[in-house]
């Protein structure tokens, strides 16, 4: 193991595993206050963990183990709330730590899934996390009862204190935690009924805020190890290109430069990258700028040329069916009117604020990596593969992420850090990419287009709907084994039939249509796609909900009433839509231009009502968005509000500015000057209605992204009579039609 004294001084605790007492890296969010008069327990041996989910110290400090990653979405605090509530512990004494992926393997995956995506952090682990905490509580009570020689059933727990009812004796968790750790876990546990929750459902402050206000929070890019060198990398900028030559002698004598090395990333069969290792990162970066490199080969992909393929898919006879029913041909044949519109979604980049990085220490016996990752286990597998060492000889220390959004679910940057560190055995090397490198070598949200056709009868009723998606499948490239008979059902997020595939039940269509077809003509460019916050729900919401608005206006009907007419089978979807509309003042005769959107995604019902102003010059002001979400259970309402506001920034930045274009196989938008993101001046007021109806666990981080853009686009139509179907909006003229 590396000398981690520097880390320790920064507030990290790196466990050795020798005592089994502390594991992983303690996320630096210890209780804020320390009492000078507190009892001194330093003579006592440290307590062992009660169980995998909770370690309790003599002073009652509860350390909750968090397997999922914290990247800003608040899951760390939410999961700690789940544990603390079931444990009946004092919330003010809760802290957290990440058990390492290696420890998870050694303990037969006791913490289960480490992947942090798909808005699964809470909803995907709440059952076993709560059960684990309930088991720990039962063991603490049993230990107290044993000490007193009474029945555990006569004891109660609250706020880290156990009370024996008949005698009135009390003790604290810290005093019995050592004995509890020696007990066998209960064979059965019952978790609380939601009506008994005291910490779940409360708008608790995040546990990780304090260090984020002072610069003390350590991100991957900040890792500092004794003797560490710094590296930067340039991968072939053109898709599929390889390294032809480079002239290391031109930079080898520059200040600080240690080594210039050719690298083959895991996606290539030949060398396709060059890394420079130096004392300091700026020295490496400066040398890279000066290094003559020649690339060869590659794919001359161009987004403008790919348009023809997307257009072909819009009308192709062959397409995968995602959902449908009734007699669409009959509906179109008997239509009073047929409405048609074509929309697009450009490639997007995740553009996490923290550029890609990982720090690796390689020896012939062991490889350790410190990295911000959305999936510690896939990162560990990548370390093993890149180091060519058995996974038991590898370890990953998870660090808080400076943004993830799906980008850090891919472990390419971890592999590259290991490959670079292998060039310097025994020396830790931090590989930090430039912003440009991070942008060029993204995993891009795919580009698609959609042609939607709808038939109306003479009374303005929607009789038939055909929504055709044309474009890239994420799974076909990244996880081809997940295709089903060639179909990528994830393409249809938010549009799928209910009751078919339980794994996709959280991505189903809540509108009821008599005659309809939703299909996908797969057109795969050579661009590597990725899961981008909200994934395919984003464009599917734009396509469906822009078109629902177009249909309502064509039929001369109120867009709210028109939508509700098709939500009769989903009262929860109707409820969020109605709530957002009502709070916004939908239908008020106040001259405000409003637009609506409702979707179901990641297991949550979400809606938005946007208010916009467009002035005579065509300048858009998004004045306000009212959002409503029903995620079933709301673990931390104020963090849900934060996620809704934040998701709108992500979704609206894409709508306003987001577009990655390729020319000659190279991504052209390589920094924030050309891939802009919303600033505070662009930010609307956001009012969020959190309306948990109970009985299910829906997602939070992603679903609301999708409703922001369609609501704004529909409001722009209400303001101007202009229907924006081509994104990003920055290229559109919004002056009154």
């Amino acid at each position, binding site marked *: 193991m590396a000398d981690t004294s520097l880390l320790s001084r920064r507030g990290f605790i790196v466990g050795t595993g020798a005592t089994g007492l502390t594991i992983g890296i303690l996320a630096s969010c210890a209780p804020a206050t320390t009492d000078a008069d507190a009892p001194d327990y330093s003579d006592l041996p440290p307590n062992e963990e009660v169980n995998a989910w909770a370690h309790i110290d003599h002073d009652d400090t509860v350390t909750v183990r968090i397997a999922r990653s914290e*990247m800003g979405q608040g899951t760390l605090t939410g999961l700690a709330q789940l544990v603390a509530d079931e444990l009946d512990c004092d919330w003010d004494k809760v802290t957290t730590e990440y058990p390492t992926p290696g420890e998870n393997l050694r303990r037969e995956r006791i913490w289960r899934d480490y992947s942090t995506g798909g808005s699964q952090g809470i909803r995907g682990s709440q059952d076993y996390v709560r059960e684990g905490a309930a088991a720990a509580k039962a063991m603490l009570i049993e230990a107290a009862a044993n000490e007193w020689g009474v029945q555990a059933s006569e004891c109660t727990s609250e706020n880290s204190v156990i009370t024996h009812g008949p005698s009135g004796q009390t003790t604290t968790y810290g005093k019995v935690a050592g004995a509890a750790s020696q007990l066998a876990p209960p064979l059965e546990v019952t978790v609380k009924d939601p009506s008994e929750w005291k910490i779940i459902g409360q708008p608790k402050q995040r546990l990780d805020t304090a260090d984020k206000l*002072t610069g003390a929070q350590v991100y991957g890019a900040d890792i500092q190890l004794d003797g560490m060198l*710094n590296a930067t990398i340039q991968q072939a900028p053109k898709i599929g290109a390889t390294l032809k030559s480079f002239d290391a002698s031109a930079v080898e004598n520059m200040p600080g430069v240690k080594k210039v090395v050719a690298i083959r990333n895991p996606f290539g069969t030949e060398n396709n990258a060059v890394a420079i290792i130096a004392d300091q990162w700026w020295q490496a970066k400066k040398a890279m700028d000066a290094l003559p490199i020649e690339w060869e080969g590659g794919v001359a992909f161009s987004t403008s040329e790919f348009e023809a393929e997307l257009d072909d898919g819009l009308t192709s006879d062959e397409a995968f069916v995602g959902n449908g029913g009734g007699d669409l041909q009959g509906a179109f044949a008997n239509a009073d009117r047929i409405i048609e519109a074509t929309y697009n979604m450009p490639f997007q980049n995740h553009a996490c604020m923290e550029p890609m990085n990982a720090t690796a220490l390689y020896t012939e016996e062991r490889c350790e990596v410190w990295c911000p990752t959305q999936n510690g286990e896939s990162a560990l597998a990548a370390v093993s593969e890149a180091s060519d060492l058995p996974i038991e000889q590898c370890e990953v220390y998870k660090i808080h992420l400076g943004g993830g959004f799906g980008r850090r679910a891919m472990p390419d940057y971890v592999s590259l850090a290991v490959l670079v560190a292998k060039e310097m055995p025994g020396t830790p090397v931090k590989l930090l990419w430039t912003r440009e490198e991070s942008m060029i070598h993204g995993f891009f949200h795919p580009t698609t287009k959609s042609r939607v056709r709808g038939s109306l009868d003479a009374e303005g009723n929607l009789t038939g709907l055909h929504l055709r998606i044309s474009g890239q499948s994420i799974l076909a490239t990244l996880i081809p084994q997940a295709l089903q008979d060639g179909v990528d059902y994830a393409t249809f997020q938010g549009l799928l039939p209910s009751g078919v595939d339980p794994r996709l039940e959280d991505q189903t269509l809540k509108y009821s249509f008599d005659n309809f077809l939703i299909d996908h003509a797969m057109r795969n460019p050579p661009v590597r796609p990725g899961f981008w916050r909200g994934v395919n729900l984003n464009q599917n919401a734009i396509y469906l909900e822009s078109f629902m608005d177009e249909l309502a206006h064509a039929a001369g009907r109120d867009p709210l009433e028109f939508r509700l007419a098709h939500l009769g089978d989903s009262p929860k979807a109707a409820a969020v839509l109605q709530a957002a509309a009502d709070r916004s003042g939908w239908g008020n005769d106040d001259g405000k231009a409003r637009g609506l959107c409702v979707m179901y995604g990641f297991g949550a019902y979400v809606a938005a009502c946007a208010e916009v102003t467009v002035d005579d010059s065509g300048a858009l002001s998004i004045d306000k968005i009212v959002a409503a979400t029903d995620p079933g259970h709301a673990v931390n309402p104020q963090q849900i509000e934060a996620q809704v*506001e934040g998701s709108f920034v992500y979704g609206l930045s894409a709508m306003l500015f987001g577009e990655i274009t390729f020319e000659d196989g190279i991504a052209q938008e390589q920094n924030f000057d050309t891939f802009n993101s919303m600033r505070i001046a662009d930010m609307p007021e956001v009012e969020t209605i959190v309306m948990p109806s109970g009985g299910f666990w829906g997602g939070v981080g992603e679903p609301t992204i999708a409703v922001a853009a369609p609501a704004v686009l529909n409001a722009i139509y209400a303001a101007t009579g202009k229907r924006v179907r081509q994104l990003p909006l920055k290229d559109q003229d919004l002056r009154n039609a």
Partner: protein
Amino acid sequence: MATLKINGNTVNVDAEDDTPLLWVIREQVGLTGTKYGCGIAQCGTCTIHIDGSPVRACVYPLGALNGDEEITTIEGLSEGASHPVQQAWAELDIPQCGYCQPGMIMAVAGMLNDNPNPSDEDIDAEITNICRCGTLARVRKGIKLAVEKA
């Protein structure tokens, strides 16, 4: 070799004149609260103060300093996170991933040094930092709360 005054301390650094102050602060001085985001003064995550005014350190060369300036980083903004902006940020629980927040806080604190009671238009014009998690709505509320606390 250059001598700088950072957070009230005098430090000697050994870097070439064209090294951006961001990397001098991070790699020579060892203060990593100031972050690298874009390197082209677009995102503001590297914001520090020079004599109280916000500066994007990623494009500010070491050689442009004469050594007399008072440089302040997020680590030196206050003792114990007591600056009104930090207090407001804590109260409203503003950071999400938090990577951009040192720069955001320094940009806001710098604005308030010059303009203790900014209008919404002032905020729009002066706070142009990028936050991809999307804390912008709370940042505006935080600025107003910080004004009250100051």
